């Protein structure tokens, strides 16, 4: 019987927590954007005229097909992260795309229409050098892969290896390129630095070495970047130091050295310090490349040259020009060149490759985004028009990873912001009030100027409000008549305003490339973007909201701290998060590396919170640093504490602010690095509210929570990684006093540790190396049955250590990230949001992670609604908040409260971005969508009339009785 009750309790509790999205709610308040990353290879499908496919391979190890008309994804394959999934080469022929993955580990062929894998071949080990399609008699049949010491030929239709041959003298010669002109031979080109070039000739059928020769080339430093094969097997190289071009016919036996052509004879000169680049084109792998090629002499100087009868002749000089690219359609090959027009625009023109003549009416004007970066890649899609002239479209990639697809005469067909594939940090900011609300607010903000003007102003603002309300009513009425799908509110930066429940917010996202985005959380529309130039890769970003939208007429203010990874030197960028405009506030110079930042609740006269920056000499810089702020800082200095973490020495230290903005060391904890190293330190979120101070137990007594806002969770991992001796250390340290509140070790455990620290609990996930599984552990801190000081919490006055309860559970899945939901007042029960590597986001009720879950069920535990302990954590499919909208490579989850207590806004970012709302305790403060208003109002009216009538009847009856 007891077991039945237990089961009943479990199922009831599950019923209570179970919540999933209904089918008709899909896409109503959630959206997903999919990204691909920085494009490394892009190929247009020129197989058929109507084809819309654009194949791309990116630095995020993504191989995808885009619709070139809309920019949407047809399909996308996300490979492993890191070098294992790195895409080395992308080749395309007809319907097949051949990809070399993982430094030449795998060779794959994809069907481009639906993105299905046709075949996969595992290659021999060896670092990848080059890959090329090989054609025989106008028909491409093979693909050749060049490794450091071997070359292999594979059949294009089946992937089977035709032959593999070792390269001669591969320990001294660096082989870097393959060339085949479709005449039954494969040339492998290698070189010995500063000595000679080696050319090996293979027969396609069996891999027999036909010829091998070496040619003197003492100036050679790299084959790959400075050489190209043009015009029926002529090797062409360019050298900066000798300012010369060198040519060599690959097949002829008599040439033993390269012919030198001084650039001076062509009236050309390579810019000093610039490595010249040769660009040739081979439209069909089964035929030799064209005789025309581009030579880039400086970052903005290209020249189109032609090799004819062993002579090099310039066809057209493009000075200045940013980018140049070849494209082929049918038999015609064209060259597109981007030249600067003025400060904000570039023009792209088409030239015929064989003559260098400009095609008429082919100009595309490309407007550069003033908040974006410079264009750095140009991909051209040429096609034949009905009148047999060549039309084209271009895709431009800029430094800030924006892909822009343009067509004549400069219309932007689509745009993709690929910087968003690498979001580093984000914040959500409330939207500003509407104009009328702001008007009313402004009235209170201003100084009074007489009675009559005040009355008039009040009347006028009331009138404006009335007007706005009427307009709103009219709009509601108007919209109600239209079908629901056609009502679409376009969000623009001008129509931004806060909604009734503050569900729509501005997402400020910082990406690794240094581009900032402002995205509307309701629709996912990018409202503003700002590219910060000169940001070093791998910089550390910290985004701080200094002033929220609540202080009209002061605009909200965000501050981004950008820290160089190597030097630690930082800089501040202050901007308005709603409009993305850079603020004109003077920012302090930071000449020394910044160790720590601290946002104080102290506000200046403009309602901006004070940001303290601590440098490596423990000096404090305040921002803003007005007189008012400094005065306030002096007053509160003795209660401003901060901590520093030096994980290389295992040292945690606490400092206190002094009046003169210097600091003093007050505590020190040293965790020896020989035993364990600190991997993460996390405090609690500053905007978190805890509604209840304690938990009501089964016997009606209260167990008070230990709610220390200064508590830090420090996670360490052992240096010993043997599976029996490795451990994960958990330290709970008070950030003010340095007191170690709790110290625990999880034995036989290993990282990576993910954890959430909130309220009075800490949840962490680790890898159990003994049982080889992921485990969750929850720590809860309680003060006990009595509070020490119920009015205020002070770290300096809390002598009794808290009671610590802990329990662990098995989690039957690997996890990528962990976060907890957050609501306005903290009344709603908490859920944990678990990002799984599969791309699903699991909303796990905190109820299941409760160290008070009893082993044996009792009357009291039932009273408290505790679920009996079970070692394994359940995963229910209805807990996946993103149903089938998986998020690739989840990096982080951001949660923000909304105006509704039941609702928490969630943004998941990784390769994709997903935004949704979660209702951990269901929508207790919202009427359902299908709420029956008619029924409830008819019942109400019915009851009302019934009372009226019965009252009348009762009166009549009373009167009659009185008469009797």
């Amino acid at each position, binding site marked *: *019987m007891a*077991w039945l009750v237990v089961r009943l309790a479990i199922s009831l509790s599950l019923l209570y927590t179970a919540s999933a999205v209904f089918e008709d709610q899909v896409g109503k308040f959630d959206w997903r954007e999919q990204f691909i990353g920085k494009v490394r290879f892009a190929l247009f499908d020129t197989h058929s005229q109507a084809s819309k496919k654009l194949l791309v391979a990116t630095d995020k190890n993504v191989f995808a097909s885009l619709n070139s008309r809309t920019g949407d994804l047809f399909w996308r394959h996300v490979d492993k992260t890191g070098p294992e999934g790195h895409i080395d080469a992308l080749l395309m022929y007809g319907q097949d795309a051949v990809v070399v993955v993982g430094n030449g580990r795998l060779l794959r062929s994809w069907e481009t229409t639906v993105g299905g894998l046709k075949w996969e071949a595992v290659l021999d080990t060896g670092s990848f050098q080059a890959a090329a399609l090989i054609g025989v008699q106008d028909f491409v049949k093979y693909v050749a892969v060049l490794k450091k010491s071997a070359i292999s030929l594979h059949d294009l239709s089946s992937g089977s290896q035709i032959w593999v041959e070792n390269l001669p003298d591969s320990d001294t010669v660096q082989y870097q390129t393959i060339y085949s002109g479709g005449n039954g031979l494969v040339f492998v080109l290698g070189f010995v630095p500063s000595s000679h070039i080696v050319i090996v000739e293979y027969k396609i059928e069996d891999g027999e070495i036909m010829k091998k020769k070496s040619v003197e080339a003492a100036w050679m430093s790299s084959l790959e970047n400075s050489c190209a094969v043009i015009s029926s097997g002529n090797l062409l190289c360019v050298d900066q130091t000798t300012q010369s071009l060198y040519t060599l016919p690959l097949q002829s036996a008599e040439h033993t050295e390269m012919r030198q052509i001084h650039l001076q004879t062509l009236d050309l000169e390579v810019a000093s310090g610039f490595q010249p680049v040769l660009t040739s084109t081979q439209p069909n792998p089964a035929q030799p490349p064209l005789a025309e090629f581009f030579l880039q002499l400086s970052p903005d100087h290209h020249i189109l040259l032609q090799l004819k009868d062993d002579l090099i002749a310039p066809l057209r000089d493009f000075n200045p020009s940013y980018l140049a690219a070849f494209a082929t359609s049918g038999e015609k090959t064209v060259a597109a060149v981007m030249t600067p027009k003025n400060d904000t625009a570039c023009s792209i023109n088409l030239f015929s490759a064989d003559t260098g003549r400009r095609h008429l009416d082919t100009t595309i004007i490309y407007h550069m985004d003033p908040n974006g970066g410079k264009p750095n890649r140009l991909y051209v899609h040429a096609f034949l028009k009905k009148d047999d002239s060549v039309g084209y479209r271009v895709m431009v990639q800029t430094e800030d990873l924006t892909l822009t697809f343009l067509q004549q005469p400069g219309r932007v067909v689509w745009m993709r912001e690929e910087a968003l594939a690498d979001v580093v940090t984000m914040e959500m900011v409330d939207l500003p009030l509407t104009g009328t609300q702001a008007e009313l607010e402004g009235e209170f903000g201003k100084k009074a100027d007489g009675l009559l003007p005040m009355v008039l102003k009040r009347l006028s603002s009331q009138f404006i409000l009335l007007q706005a309300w009427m307009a709103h009513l009219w709009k509601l009425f108007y919209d109600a008549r239209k079908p629901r799908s056609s009502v679409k509110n376009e969000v623009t930066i001008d129509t931004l305003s806060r909604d009734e429940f503050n569900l729509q917010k501005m997402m400020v996202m910082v990406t690794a490339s240094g581009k900032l985005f402002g995205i509307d959380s309701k629709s996912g529309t990018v409202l503003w973007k700002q590219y910060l130039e000169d940001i070093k890769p791998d910089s550390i970003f910290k985004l701080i909201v200094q002033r929220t939208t609540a202080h009209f007429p002061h605009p909200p203010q965000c501050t981004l701290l950008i820290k160089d990874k190597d030097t630690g030197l930082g800089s501040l960028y202050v901007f308005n998060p709603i409009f993305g405009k850079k603020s004109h506030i003077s920012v302090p110079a930071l000449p020394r590396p910044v160790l720590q930042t601290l946002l104080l609740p102290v506000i200046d006269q403009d309602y901006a919170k004070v940001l303290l920056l601590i440098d490596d000499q423990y000096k404090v810089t305040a921002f803003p640093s007005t007189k008012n702020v400094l005065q306030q800082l002096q007053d509160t200095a*003795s209660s401003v504490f901060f901590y520093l973490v030096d994980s290389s020495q295992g040292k945690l230290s606490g400092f206190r602010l002094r009046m003169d903005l210097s600091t*003093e*060391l*007050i*505590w*020190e*904890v*040293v*965790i*020896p690095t020989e*035993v*364990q190293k600190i991997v993460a330190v996390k405090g609690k979120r500053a905007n978190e509210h805890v509604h209840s101070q304690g938990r009501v137990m089964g016997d009606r007594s209260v167990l008070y929570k230990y709610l220390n806002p200064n508590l830090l969770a420090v996670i360490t991992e052992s240096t010993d990684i043997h599976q029996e001796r490795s*451990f994960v*250390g*958990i330290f709970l*340290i008070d950030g003010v*006093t*340095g*007191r*170690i509140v*709790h*110290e*625990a*070790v*999880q*034995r036989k455990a290993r990282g990576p540790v993910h954890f959430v620290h909130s309220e009075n609990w800490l949840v962490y996930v680790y890898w*159990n190396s003994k049982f080889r599984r992921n*485990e969750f*552990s929850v*720590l809860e801190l309680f003060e006990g049955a009595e509070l020490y*000081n119920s009015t205020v919490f002070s770290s*300096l*006055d*809390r*002598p009794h250590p808290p009671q*610590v309860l*802990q*329990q*662990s*559970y*098995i989690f039957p899945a690997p996890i990528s990230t962990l976060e907890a939901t957050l609501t306005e007042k903290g009344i709603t029960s908490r859920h944990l949001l678990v990002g799984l590597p599969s791309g699903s986001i699991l909303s796990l009720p905190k109820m299941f992670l409760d160290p008070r879950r009893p*082993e*044996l069920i009792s009357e009291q535990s039932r009273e408290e609604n505790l679920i009996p*302990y*079970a*070692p*394994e954590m359940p995963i229910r499919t209805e807990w996946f908040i993103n149903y089938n909208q998986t998020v690739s490579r989840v990096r982080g989850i951001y949660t923000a409260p909304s105006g509704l207590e039941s609702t928490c806004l969630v943004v998941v970012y990784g390769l994709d971005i997903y935004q949704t709302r979660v209702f951990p305790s269901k929508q207790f403060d919202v009427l359902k969508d299908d709420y*029956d208003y008619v*029924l409830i109002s008819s019942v109400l009216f019915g009851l009302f009339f019934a009372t009226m009538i019965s009252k009348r009847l009762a009166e009549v009856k009373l009167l009659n009785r009185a008469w009797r």
Partner: protein
Amino acid sequence: MATIRVFSLILSVLSIITLLWTQSGECNNGRRLGDAVDTDFSGFSVPLEHSFEIDDVPRFRLRGALQFRGGRENGVYLAQNQLSEKDRNTMKDVAAVDGLYRIRVPRVSLQVDRQTEKQSEGYITAFVRACSLVESHLSDVITLHTDVSGNVIGISIVTIPGSCRGIEVEDEVDLEVFNTTISVVAPVTAPVPETAPYIERMDQEMEKKGKNPQEQKSFFAKYWMYIVPLVLFLMMSGAQDQSGGGGGAGGGAGNGGGR
């Protein structure tokens, strides 16, 4: 050289301790005197230093010596000086300006065998507000935290009570002797998922079920003999009164649809 220094350090500390005993003949951590005398010096000791200055620049002086006993249960014992007249006055002055009372110990390993191999470098420090120490009449609780291999990683000091209410401490005697509770805390081993007891419990349930099938039967299985005739009876009566039953069913369906 290093070993000599350690040796001399230990010697000096020991001499202080012995000096203390001869002077005061009392130990302040609640142990009986005889207990202390019985102690053999198989353990080792480290100095506990404190600092309380008006200008808040730490100048550490010796407060006492922490005597660790080797062995399993990290026993610790603190022998400490009385506060001198001058110290008492400084303490009161520091408390008046809300200064800090700091303590520190060198970084050591509590495992005796490691003592010789590693010379401590640096200190670990903690603080408490001087006023709370004064108001609590020098009643403090010092906790030393160690890591898994016995290295001291942190020290904490709290006073009981911990508040600063501005109560004037008149009696000089209250500030003479520390009333210290000292302990060493090693990390607790965090629990792992308890599968074995759970499985055991499940087995017990199953066993119970197997032993006493009558009791474990479900409600329906137990009372089917009553339910089936009832249902049959209802169906029969429903068939007889077709029109009334149909109307009722229709009403039911209507209600269901309304929800």
